[in-house]
Each structure stands twice: as structure tokens, then as C-alpha cells.
């Protein structure tokens, strides 16, 4: 049996809009992945801890608050500190164009704004894990 892809979908920070996160979680489920959903208002520490306990392959962050330049690097840092540098971090939400290269340089994989097709996210996850 092929190993199941496990994905953590997390909402760090204080914005309360989790519709996007839920849509992505549902799409990944329909693509046969096991999605652990953490709910709203998670700290980077909580996310890294969940990623560790659940031994996920991918962490998907949904951030609509504008705090992505603070939150995403912190999650990457904590994952690495826990020995999970191989975990892929994806980001969805409202991310200004000028921040995208900076985030990519830090190691964030796919970055998805409004209007992204969920099929693209599924495809990217499968590709990056091959």
C-alpha cells in the first residue's frame, strides 16, 4: 500500500475566516489525503507541535490577517528545530506580490491567493512529495 499523504491545515494568528482553509481541507480529502484540521487562532508553537505529533508531510497555513511575514517564518523555524525540516510548508490567503519571493526564499513552497484552483494545490503537493 502506498503511504497516505498527511497534511496539517492550520490557521495561525487572529483572523477568524476559515472558509478557505476548510475548502482546501475538503479538496485534499477528496484527493485521498488525510487532513488534520486544527481550527482557528493557533500559535506557531501549537502548529509545530501538532505537525510533530501527527507526523505530517505538509503543513498548509491559511493567513488572511497580513501577519504572514511574522507567522510563516516562525513556523518554518520551529519545524526545523523539531527535526522536521523535510516538512513542506504551503501558504494560502491574502499575500501581497512583493512578499512572495521573500517567503519562497525562506522555504515556503506553494503560495496561493484567492481564485486558486484546489486541483492545482493537490497537484503541487503530489509533485513536491515525489
Amino acid at each position, binding site marked *: 500500500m502506498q503511504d497516505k499523504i498527511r497534511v496539517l491545515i492550520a490557521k495561525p494568528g487572529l483572523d477568524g475566516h476559515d472558509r478557505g482553509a476548510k475548502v482546501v481541507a475538503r479538496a485534499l480529502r477528496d484527493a485521498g489525503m488525510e487532513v488534520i484540521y486544527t481550527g482557528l487562532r493557533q500559535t506557531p508553537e501549537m502548529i509545530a507541535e501538532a505537525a510533530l*505529533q501527527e507526523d505530517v508531510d505538509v503543513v498548509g497555513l491559511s493567513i488572511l490577517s497580513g501577519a504572514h511575514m511574522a507567522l510563516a517564518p516562525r513556523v518554518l523555524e520551529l519545524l526545523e528545530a523539531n527535526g522536521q525540516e523535510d516538512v513542506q510548508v504551503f501558504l494560502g490567503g491574502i499575500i501581497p506580490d512583493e512578499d512572495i519571493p521573500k517567503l519562497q526564499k525562506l522555504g515556503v513552497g506553494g503560495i496561493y491567493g484567492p481564485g486558486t484552483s484546489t486541483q492545482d494545490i493537490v497537484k503541487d503537493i503530489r509533485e513536491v512529495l515525489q
Partner: protein
Amino acid sequence: MSVIEDILAGDRLALARTLSEIENDTPEGQRALDELFPHTGQARLIGVTGAPGTGKSTLVNRLAYLYRHPPAGVESKSVGIVAVDPSSPFSGGAVLGDRVRMRDLAGDPGVFVRSMASRGSLGGLARTTSDLVQVLDAAGYEIIIIETVGAGQAEVDIARLAHTTIVIEAPGLGDDIQAIKAGILEIADILVVNKADRLGAENTTRALRGMLELAKPGKRFPQHHAPVMALRPPPDLGEGEENGWEPPIVQTVATTGTGISQLEEEIARHQKYLHKSGDLIHKEKIRLKTKMDDLLQYSLVSRWRESITREIYKTTLDKLVARKISPQEAVRVLMNGGNL
């Protein structure tokens, strides 16, 4: 250090990775199970089951929190949690949402929460849930709480795994006929009426109490794939427990924590009862027998699958669908290497 030594020393990453290996049925996972088995048998296993939305995860969160932060004078215990949610029968994927209710436990190194998908199993647990529990046991977690998928009437596997099974009901889910049906209510060592602040909680409690009074409590152990049956006469216990264990009913409001300490007291009382009556040894025996039988079945099916080609399987299935042979004949053909 080997992975096994890492797990025994409390390395959480090694633990998490090994749990995945076991879920995915890899040789590394199998080896870990073999090597960790001698270190098991210490933990107290608490099962929590009930219909979807009755508040299982919220209750588990509260209960685990209480074990971590007990009243003054009581020692806190480390807690492992295995929470099972269903896999999609269509895509095989799953959304595992039990952690959403367990945020009070975040940041506590004495807690380890693992979500798992049922991956096609129907009894309320995944095939490897008991294996994950075994690893958490070996890793030194003193209390292990197992949360089943939202269960209806027949998902009773949990009673064969847990020492103490808690069945959660909530007001408004059915009348007293539901309460006398066989299945999930029967496996309860402790019945919880959650959301007890809601209208109808008293009715639910009364219906459950009525059910318990109808049933003459006797000693019963859930059998594997067989009816529940009385096995031996109750031993002399004293303290009003001559008739075996009578499941208490506890009212809780898990969102606020009301009734949780009473629930914990009942769990402790049940654990004491298990020791005193000798039921614990018997339960362990049933648990290990179930495990062995399950593994045997799984291995036999795997071995059989290797012995038969896809073509033979497909041809036989086609014949069955065309109604040329009966399902029984089809199985005879398949068991016989393709010959009738």
C-alpha cells in the same frame, strides 16, 4: 541510539514517525511493535465513544486536562490520546478534526495527541488503533484515551480495547426504545449524558436509568465477532458490588467542565473494581486474543491474495455479476486457486 531506545527515552519525533510506520504497515513498524511489546501493559486505557456531535472530543480534552492538572495532593499523569475519524469510502481521504477541541492541551509535553483515519475499518476504530495505543503505552504514557469515530449502534470494537469504556449520549437523540436496543449502550462501563444543561437532559438520563434497571447486571465480556455472553458467576466482592459492575450515569457539560471530576472518580472506581474482581486480567486476555485473531485473519487474507492472480479474481467476479455462479461458489473458486 535505535528508534526503539529513542521512543523509550521519550523522543517525540521518533514516536510520531514510528506511529506512521505502523499505520502504513511497513516492516520497520512491525519490528517496532515486536520490540516494544515487552514494555507495554502499564497504561490505563480509557475508551470514549458516542454518536457524532455528542461532545466526545470536548470531553476528552477536559478529561485529559484534569489528569494533567489534578486537584492539590494528587499526582498528575501523562496522557496519550488516539482520536479516530472516518475515512471517505470514495477517496480514502479524511478530515481529522478532533484536535480542534483539544487546544487546552497544546504546549504540554506530558500530552501526546495523535489523529488517525479509520482507513476502511467499520468497528469504530482503525485496524492499527490498538497498535498505536501499544506504542504510546510503551512510551510511558500513563493514561491513554481512545476516541472512536462518531459511532451509531454497532461500533463496539472499543470495548475490546479499552479497560474502561465511556459511552456519551446527549439529549434529544432518541426515545427509550433506543435505550433498550443492543449494541453501543451495552458496552458502557460508564454512561455520560453530556450537554446536561440542555433541555431534555433529564429525560435522557431517565431513559438510560430505566434501561439499566431493566437489565440484570451480570458479568459480561464482549467477545470477538460473537455475541456478548455471560462467562462466569460474579465473585464475592463486598461493597455492594456483588452483582458485578453497574454502569453509573454521569451528567456533564464538557464545554464548561461541569461533571468532569465526577466522571474521573467513576473511572477510578471502575479501575479499582477491575483489579479487585479479576476482570482486568480477563479483559487483557480478550484484548490480546482479539488482536491475535485480527492479525491472523489479516495475514491469511494477505497470503491468499498473493496466491491468486488478478485475472482469476476478475473472471470470477465477472461470472458472479453475470449470475453464472453464486457468491458462495465464487468464494469456493477463489479459495481453490481458480478451480471449482
